[in-house]
């Protein structure tokens, strides 16, 4: 997550580098049964998103097929009211959700880490003021704020949605990471690092940060989940760019073309199921992440 400049001496005495941290975290998550299921589902969606051009039978907005058709051999999930292939749209649509989840998750985690660490480590870092601002962002309801901002910025597309999701989504992580930083900061090994002549920057990024890996990873998956749900919600309300093919806009068009009345269930069912599955996979992965930090939650072997 954190890209650190490795300005140390030769090969001796390396701190756990980003790669080995990644390997350790991945293997811990993989060892949890629920999280493994989540990783597999997520992996499938990522494959769909990356190889959409190869997998999808038709183009995303390729139309001219029968309108509002029921499933056939040529169109496994039928077609939309505009005569597009539902299955193809579904596969192409995974790109948007995964992209939004990844980017918004990473950005809000970075902000949360930066705010949380500096707020927790530096004493009297305008403590009360920051506390107040973070709490304000926590209590202001996120989706209504997003809707209002999106309404002003109409037509901003995915970049706008990501911006809004990040603005409303960083505060929770910042608070959690701050309290963890404060608790780690009072541990002797942090004071000992000062005695070892370490600079504050290095103390924060080499002593404190690695001990919060599970929280940060967990925060990322949590933020990504809510970003995916928020993105779908905004697009469903028609507040995104409705010409982009995503699961949210599919539902928007489905509702607007009265798919409910015509009984075209696949149009409603399929995009929603994909959103739900993707969100569930991230939630499941977080079960494994919890296991890194909270031994009491680790599944007992046999009891």
């Amino acid at each position, binding site marked *: 997550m954190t890209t650190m400049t490795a300005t140390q001496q030769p090969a001796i005495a390396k701190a756990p580098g980003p790669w080995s941290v990644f390997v350790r975290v991945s293997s811990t998550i993989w060892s949890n049964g629920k999280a493994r299921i989540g990783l597999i589902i997520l992996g499938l969606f990522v494959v769909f998103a990356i190889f959409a051009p190869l997998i999808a039978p038709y183009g995303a907005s390729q139309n001219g097929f029968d309108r509002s058709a029921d499933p056939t051999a040529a169109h496994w999930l039928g077609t939309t009211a505009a005569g597009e292939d539902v299955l193809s749209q579904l596969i192409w649509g995974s790109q948007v959700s995964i992209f939004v989840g990844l980017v918004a998750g990473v950005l809000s985690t970075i902000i949360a880490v930066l705010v949380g660490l500096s707020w927790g480590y530096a004493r009297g870092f305008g403590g009360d003021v920051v506390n*107040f601002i973070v*709490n*304000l962002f*926590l*209590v*202001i*309801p*996120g*989706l*209504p*704020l*997003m*809707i*209002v*901002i*999106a*309404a*002003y*910025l*109409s037509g901003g597309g995915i970049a706008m949605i990501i911006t809004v999701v990040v603005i409303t989504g960083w505060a*929770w992580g910042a608070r959690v990471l701050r309290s963890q930083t404060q608790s780690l900061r009072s541990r002797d090994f942090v004071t000992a690092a000062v005695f070892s002549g370490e600079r504050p920057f290095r103390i924060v990024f080499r002593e404190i940060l690695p001990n919060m890996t599970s929280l940060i990873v967990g925060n990322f998956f949590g933020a990504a*989940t809510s970003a995916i*749900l928020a993105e*779908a*919600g905004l697009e*469903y*309300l*028609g*507040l995104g760019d409705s010409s982009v093919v995503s699961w949210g806009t599919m*539902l928007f068009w489905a*509702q607007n073309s009265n798919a*409910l*009345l015509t*009984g075209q*269930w696949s149009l*409603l*069912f399929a*995009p*929603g*199921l994909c*959103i*739900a599955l993707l*969100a*569930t996979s*991230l*939630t*499941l992965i977080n*079960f494994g992440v*919890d296991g890194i930090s*909270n031994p*009491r*939650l680790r599944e*007992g072997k046999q*009891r």
Partner: protein
Amino acid sequence: MTSVTAAPRGAEGKAKSVEDDLPLQTDSSGRARQTTLFVLRKLGLFVLTLWAAVTVNFILPRLMPGTPADAALAKLAQNGPVSDATKAAIEAQLGVPTGNIFEQYVSYLHQVITLDFGVSYTFYPQTVAELVSTALPYTLVLVGAVTIIAFILGTLLGVLAAWKRGTWLDALPTLAGSFASAFPYFWTALLLLFFAGYVWRLFPTSGAYGPTATPNLSFAFLGDALYHAFLPALTILITSLGGWILGMRNTMISTLGDDYVTFAEANGLKPRVVALRYAARNAILPNLTSFGLALGGVVGGSILVERVFGYPGVGYLLFNAVTNQDYPLMQALFLMITLSVLVANFLVDILYGVLDPRTRR
């Protein structure tokens, strides 16, 4: 057996007083004072947060590109001539490119305090205040009641899951809960609407009451309203329940490992007492905080739900305001939603203080 009596240590002086650096100084009047202080402190914080939220609402449209006020005025002009008073009101709310920002702020604050948000141009000539006050009760009752029910039910199921850890009573709600809570609100709503509304025709497909009814307090109307509210309520329940179950289960598993639970068992308290008065009673505290903070999410979700079911609450109104670029209505609604969440959070804070003796000190 030969008994070796240890040298009596009492002879070395009654050293008890040494340890009690912490005398029992607080009497009941001191406690009452602490409680008052606690409430006042929370109240002060509430007012401050409220002010900040109102200010955010003032700044937001002014940060946005373009001039929302001009757009609003142009839109309003389509309905007929705009009075100067209306023009001033809209400019105070949404900002004008020129003009003293401080004066705008003062007149905006005055508006907020007198609840004068001007006229809606989507539902011209109704005032924003009228529209909001009609929609608010539906949302407050629907979202408020369902959220509280979901929290209580979820907490109870979470307690059960943690207490019966490793059995199906744990596995089932945990798994179902984590799956259901990942459902997008609007998708759950769409599914329920599709099946229960259109396919099976069990419930009405839109509105808060039947087309022939007029709002009053008769049983007939209330029954009709409940009938219409059922599907939206069920949606919110299904999607929010899982989070409470999981949260409570996890904190309770953690408190079950605490020393006071072990000690309570060692003292032979009945398992039910240990589970409820000891483990659950403490586990609920952190969950209460999450409850306050999650309210915003539930309110957000309910907007989508109201949109799906065409339920005439605040969320549906907001949706209409947004699609019609009715900025005055939108701003007022956002303010109201934020205000409701803030009030709810304040109440949760006070409740927390009641439940946890440590916070009052």
